[in-house]
């Protein structure tokens, strides 16, 4: 009987031996027929199941028919009394995950096992049954499950509790009825039972803050036996702390409990507690100290897992509290040579965050040795850390820039090289001294760069920055070399860059033209086209004249339009008599969906395109408004606001309004929905009282003929206002209509109606409505190019605020402008913040705003507001918005 699963071939002993060598699905399925034998051989059956499981584990799949056949055959094995075989049967059923109609076949067998005297049967039958069952069956077995939860045998209790955790997702209403039993199980003496019970109890109550708080209060005083349960308790406690912190002040509740867990005997609990403390909202240095101390001990542990856990946590702390981590610097430095490169990388980047100016050089020396033997993914992390270090200590740019250029010359993949180039670009942009040095490094890099993308991006950047340097001529050679040696894409980019030098630097013009003329014979269309375009626009027949500003703007000016918007407009454009008009492209940057803001605080990469958003709804509004004859002569739509609700949620009639701003008019678009099935509204108008809006005069309104149940309709009201002036005012609104009864079952409408009115909330036109969100790609450049002529600076006290972040977002929404360069995100716990905003004021006036915030002890926020624009009235207006807001 004791035959091996597959006969071992004696001649080929050297080859790797596997009992499953040459195994084949068809043959095993044949073998599964032994399950039907009247005289079951348990051992043989077990072997066949193992083979089936092996196949599944290797990724083999059974067809529906095969799976059903195997399943039915396996159910026969419940006849055997053999414990081991039964165990394999359970496993097999779980792997096959039978369909609902098949489940019925095994239900009775499993229910019998669930009430068996053998603990192992009970525990496993519960797990299998709960895995494959649906809600209806669950009510039948609920009684047994409740008993199992408080079973003497911990394995049975755990099986029931864990199954409960899984079932809570599908049939919460049933599992919630078990809380008494679960509560009892929390007191169990068996460690794992306590862990599972606690997890289930918390999940049952997770939406009930008070209950969770009570649970935590009682358990933190009692004794929790299992380290895993203790970890859970720490997690729940931090949750309670987080929610309590918003309502209470003074001493942090439960901190003592967390601190006491730092002295627990299990390392996993110590670490969980230490990590929890470092992640507390607004954690103080005093609170941090004990946690940092235990993490520091872990750093010199012999176990890599402990070292990793500790250094990873300290790395996170270093972002917000670099000073608190400095004590660990010596331990951290010895980790640079750690065998585990993840640990070494984390140590280095932590050191880069906590290091001071004097330690930079020493650190760089250590890193240089280290860089050669780590993978690209780690190198990228280091490069990013070095970039932020350089921004922190601009005086050290020389050694850091050298380091970057050295690693740029070494071997590496695209992502890594891109990270380095991005970093150099950002340093050039932010540290003026580093500019020439950095540009030369980039020039050298493109001499031998295998990545087209990077070459073109660098060439573009050279074209922008190069002409502004003290000696632009020295870059020409590098650029022109590209025209000889590269592929068409890079050649075309090089031509554009050359032309930029020619246009910006008059002294270079003749020589650049000579080079451009040579490009006219290039083999590629695009390269030739570009050369021709530039020669004809920038240089008029070789004469050296100063290039016209208009031409410069046309060729090299930045496109003030979000790329996504122009893309949609071009796609919508149908070839017609009328040429495509770039002014018709909406400039509004739509707020980006939240998903894209996953990495808060991360600055957008240097070479990345200016922020662009998905196609806006402005298009839709514009189409809608231009289709209404009354509004057709209002001109181009400047801005449409987000909808403002004029009714409470869930009232009879839901109304919101969108404010459309034109140069001389304002149009209110009331979106109305009738939420009463028994009513039909006719002749619906909005009566607007503009007595508190003196500068506005009603010119037109467009009522709605009928408003049936649940199909939204729009009413419009148009007002005239002085041209180009950001007039503000308050409007009160009243909905007036004729109600007719409707029989909802038949849809019949009664003939007679009653006139009725419905008061809506007031609507305000504020100054922010006249500012459009328009981003700029490089705030510093834009700021400098507008110049200080109409700069207005003033300081404001914002009073006590919840947090700095809250104050920043309040001011942003008050001004209705576009945050630039990710400055709307406030780092956790920071005491000050600078936020950059840009926008366009009505009348097409560019506005830039620099906000500096500071917060002191009792949450008093102060703000310095600097505005630059092309018109001093507008600068004043922005201050007025803030002053009155």
């Amino acid at each position, binding site marked *: 009987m004791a035959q091996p699963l597959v006969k071992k071939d004696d001649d080929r002993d050297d080859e790797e031996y596997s009992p499953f060598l040459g195994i084949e699905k068809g043959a095993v399925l044949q073998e599964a027929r032994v399950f039907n034998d009247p005289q079951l051989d348990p051992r043989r059956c077990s072997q066949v199941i193992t083979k089936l499981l092996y196949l599944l*584990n290797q990724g083999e799949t059974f067809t529906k028919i095969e799976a059903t056949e195997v399943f039915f055959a396996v159910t026969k094995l419940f006849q055997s009394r053999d414990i081991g075989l039964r*165990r394999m049967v359970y496993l097999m059923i779980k792997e096959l995950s039978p369909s609902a109609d098949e489940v019925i076949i095994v239900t009775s067998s499993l229910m019998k096992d669930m009430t068996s005297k053998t603990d192992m049967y009970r525990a496993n039958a519960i797990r299998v049954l709960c895995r494959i069952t649906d809600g209806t069956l669950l009510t039948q077995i609920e009684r047994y499950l409740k008993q199992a939860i408080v079973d003497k045998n911990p394995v049975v209790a*755990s099986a029931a509790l864990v199954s409960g955790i899984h079932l809570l997702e599908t049939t919460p209403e049933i599992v919630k009825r078990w809380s008494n039993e679960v509560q009892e199980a929390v007191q169990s003496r068996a460690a794992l039972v306590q862990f599972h019970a606690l*997890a289930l109890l918390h999940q049952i109550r997770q939406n009930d803050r008070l209950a969770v708080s009570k649970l935590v209060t009682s358990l933190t005083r009692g004794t929790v036996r299992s380290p895993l349960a203790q970890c859970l308790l720490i997690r729940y406690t931090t949750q309670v702390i987080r929610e309590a912190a918003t309502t209470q002040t003074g001493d942090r509740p439960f901190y003592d409990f967390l601190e006491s867990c730092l002295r627990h005997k299990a*390392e*996993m609990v110590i670490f969980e507690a230490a990590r929890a403390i470092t992640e507390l909202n607004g954690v103080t240095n005093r609170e941090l100290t004990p946690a940092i101390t235990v993490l520091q001990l872990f750093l010199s542990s012999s176990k*890599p897992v402990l070292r990793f856990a500790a250094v990873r946590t300290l790395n996170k702390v270093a972002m917000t509290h670099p000073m608190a981590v400095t004590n660990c610097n010596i331990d951290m430095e010895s980790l640079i040579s750690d*065998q585990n490169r993840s640990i070494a990388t984390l140590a280095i980047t932590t050191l880069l965050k906590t290091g001071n100016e004097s330690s930079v050089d020493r650190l760089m020396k250590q890193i240089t040795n280290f860089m050669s033997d780590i993978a690209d993914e780690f190198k990228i992390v280091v490069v990013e850390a070095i970039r932020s270090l350089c921004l922190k200590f601009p005086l050290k740019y020389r050694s850091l820039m050298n380091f970057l250029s050295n690693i740029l010359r070494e071997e590496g993949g695209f992502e890594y090289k891109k990270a380095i180039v991005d970093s150099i670009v950002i340093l050039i942009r932010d540290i003026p001294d580093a500019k020439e040095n950095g540009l030369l490094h980039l020039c050298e890099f493109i001499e031998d760069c295998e990545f087209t993308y990077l070459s073109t991006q660098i060439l573009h950047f050279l074209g922008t920055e190069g002409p502004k340097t003290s000696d632009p001529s020295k870059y020409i050679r590098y650029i022109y070399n590209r025209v000889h040696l590269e592929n068409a894409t890079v050649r075309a980019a090089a031509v554009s860059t050359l032309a930029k030098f020619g246009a910006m630097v008059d002294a270079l013009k003749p020589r650049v033209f000579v080079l451009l003329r040579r490009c006219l014979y290039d083999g590629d269309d695009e390269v030739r086209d570009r050369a021709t375009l530039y020669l004809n626009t920038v240089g008029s027949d070789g004469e050296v004249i100063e290039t016209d500003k208009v031409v410069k703007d046309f060729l090299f000016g930045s496109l003030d339009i979000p790329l996504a918007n122009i893309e949609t407009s071009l796609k919508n454009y149908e070839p017609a008599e009328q040429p495509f008009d770039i002014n018709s492209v909406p400039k509004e940057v739509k707020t980006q969906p939240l998903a894209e803001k996953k990495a808060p605080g991360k600055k957008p990469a240097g070479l990345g395109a200016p922020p662009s958003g998905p196609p806006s709804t402005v298009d839709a509004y514009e189409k809608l408004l231009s289709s209404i004859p009354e509004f057709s002569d209002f001109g181009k739509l400047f801005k449409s606001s987000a909808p403002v609700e004029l009714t409470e949620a869930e009232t009879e009639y839901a109304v919101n309004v969108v404010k459309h701003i034109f140069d001389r008019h304002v149009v209110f678009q009331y979106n109305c929905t009738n939420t009463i099935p028994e009513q039909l509204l006719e002749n619906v108008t909005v009566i607007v009282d503009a007595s508190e809006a003196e500068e506005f005069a009603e010119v037109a309104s467009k009522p709605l003929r009928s408003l049936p149940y649940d199909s939204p309709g729009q009413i419009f009201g148009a007002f005239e206002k002085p041209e180009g002036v950001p007039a503000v005012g308050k409007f009160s609104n009243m909905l007036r209509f004729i109600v007719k009864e409707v029989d909802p079952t038949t849809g019949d409408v009664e003939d007679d109606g009653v006139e009725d009115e419905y008061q809506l909330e007031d609507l305000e036109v504020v100054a922010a409505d006249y500012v459009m969100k328009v981003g700029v790609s490089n705030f510093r450049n834009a700021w400098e190019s507008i110049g200080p002529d109409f700069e207005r600076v003033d300081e404001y006290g914002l009073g006590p605020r919840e947090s700095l972040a809250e104050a920043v977002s309040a001011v942003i929404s008050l001004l209705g402008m576009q945050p630039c360069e990710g400055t709307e995100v406030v780092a956790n716990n920071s005491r000050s913040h600078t936020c950059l905003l840009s926008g366009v004021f009505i009348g097409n006036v560019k506005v830039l705003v620099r906000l500096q915030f500071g917060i002191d002890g009792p949450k008093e926020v102060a703000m310095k507001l600097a505005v630059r624009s092309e018109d001093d009235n507008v600068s004043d207006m922005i201050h007025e918005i803030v002053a009155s807001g």
Partner: protein
Amino acid sequence: MVKDTCPSIKNILLLDSEGKRVAVKYYSNDWPTNSAKEAFEKAVFTKTQKTNARTEAEIAMLEGNVIVYKFVQDLHFFVTGGEDENELILATVLQGFFDAVGLLLRGNVDKKEALENLDLILLCLDEIVDGGIILETDANVIAGKVASHSVDVGAPLSEQTISQALATAREHLTRSLLK
């Protein structure tokens, strides 16, 4: 938020010295297809291959997951958890799995022995984690539960009775304590 909930295991892998599957179990939907699973296994194997994880469990990050691992002979043990998972909990699960396999294979832990006793390895996985939730981490308890089930079958532990199996387990424990 994941962190407020129960610690959870995304997968447990047992691969051979060439990165091929001996036994694997996935508990999360992060890798929906078999090819996604195989790609992940390959990435994990390649990343960890050259490290020395024979005396102490090692750790790495991959695709936003934390992976703890340990090697013995031609077998590579892995436990994967989410990015924010407590590393030491994952390590405890790994150690439980590793030691339980050692007990069940009676010290002869290599690929050949593991495949010959694949039923024990699969049962062992089944006893450690259920649907991502940790069931048991104590190697002696895990091995005890698995071994007691195969007692009657005449599988490799056939000569042993339950008490013998537990005695072996206990002996192992004392040995590991004395180390």
